[in-house]
């Protein structure tokens, strides 16, 4: 699966709350760095992070892939995402916009998410 395909799968899985699919896209020693939380180190912490996200919000976002660079058994990608977020507790929808930087590692011949940080592009509240 190409890195572009991994990113498309990630987009679809995020919008579908598909935690198992998301975890399949991550490698063996991942670090996920979401906003408003310390880095989530390791697969269990990453899974717990997504469980908390999906318990709180429902995402409907599209990723735009700006650049992908392969370097041996590593690669990186810069993307942005935009769409709508439904805050489940409030039932309210807000605009969502983020920048993302992914580092991928080739593991057993497949590109896996190794490091991932995103940051909102929305103005401060």
């Amino acid at each position: 699966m190409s890195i572009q395909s991994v990113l498309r799968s990630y987009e679809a899985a995020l919008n579908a709350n598909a935690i198992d699919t998301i975890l399949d896209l991550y490698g063996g020693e991942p670090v996920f760095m979401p906003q408003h939380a310390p880095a989530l180190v390791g697969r269990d912490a990453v899974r717990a992070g997504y469980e908390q996200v999906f318990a709180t919000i429902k995402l409907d976002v599209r990723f735009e892939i700006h650049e992908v660079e392969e370097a041996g058994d590593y690669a990186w990608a810069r993307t942005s995402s935009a769409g709508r977020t439904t805050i489940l507790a409030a039932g309210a929808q807000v605009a969502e916009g983020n920048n993302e930087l992914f580092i991928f590692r080739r593991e057993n011949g497949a590109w896996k998410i190794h490091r991932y940080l995103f940051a909102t592009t929305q103005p401060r509240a």
Partner: protein
Amino acid sequence: MHVRNPHRLLTVALATLLPLSVSASESKPADRDLAAITRQLDRYEQALNTADIDTVMKLYAEDAVFMPQHSLPAEGRDAVRTAYRHVFDTIHLDIDFTIDEITVLSHDWAYARTRSNGTVKVLASDQPPAPEANQELFLLHRDSDGQWRFARYIFSTTNPPMLP
């Protein structure tokens, strides 16, 4: 600048490079890359705390993209400089970076994963400095002069969301 568990950090980098370099004597370049990248991050910390935009720009690569939170990406050196001008015109930072990881991906690419903690003072406000806490992902490129520079850089806060 804190380096948490520098031994592990070196191990990570060596594990990355060893498949490329068979003999032990060739582990020296990995050492040098780690030291060089650490030095660049140290310079960045100092430049942020002293609002030294020229030093910040020396740390950025030619086609750099800076992705500060709450902002569209700043693409290219002119946009990056403008973004830092805005930051330094707006706030005064007093922060300390902790390097959690440096990994060399290839001859020309590396990344660093860091955290920063300290205070931020809004210059236009009478309020005292407020706690600041972020995490950062730096993608570094080895330029043609051999220097590691920031090619892509993104950060986000680790503080809980502000309640409405």
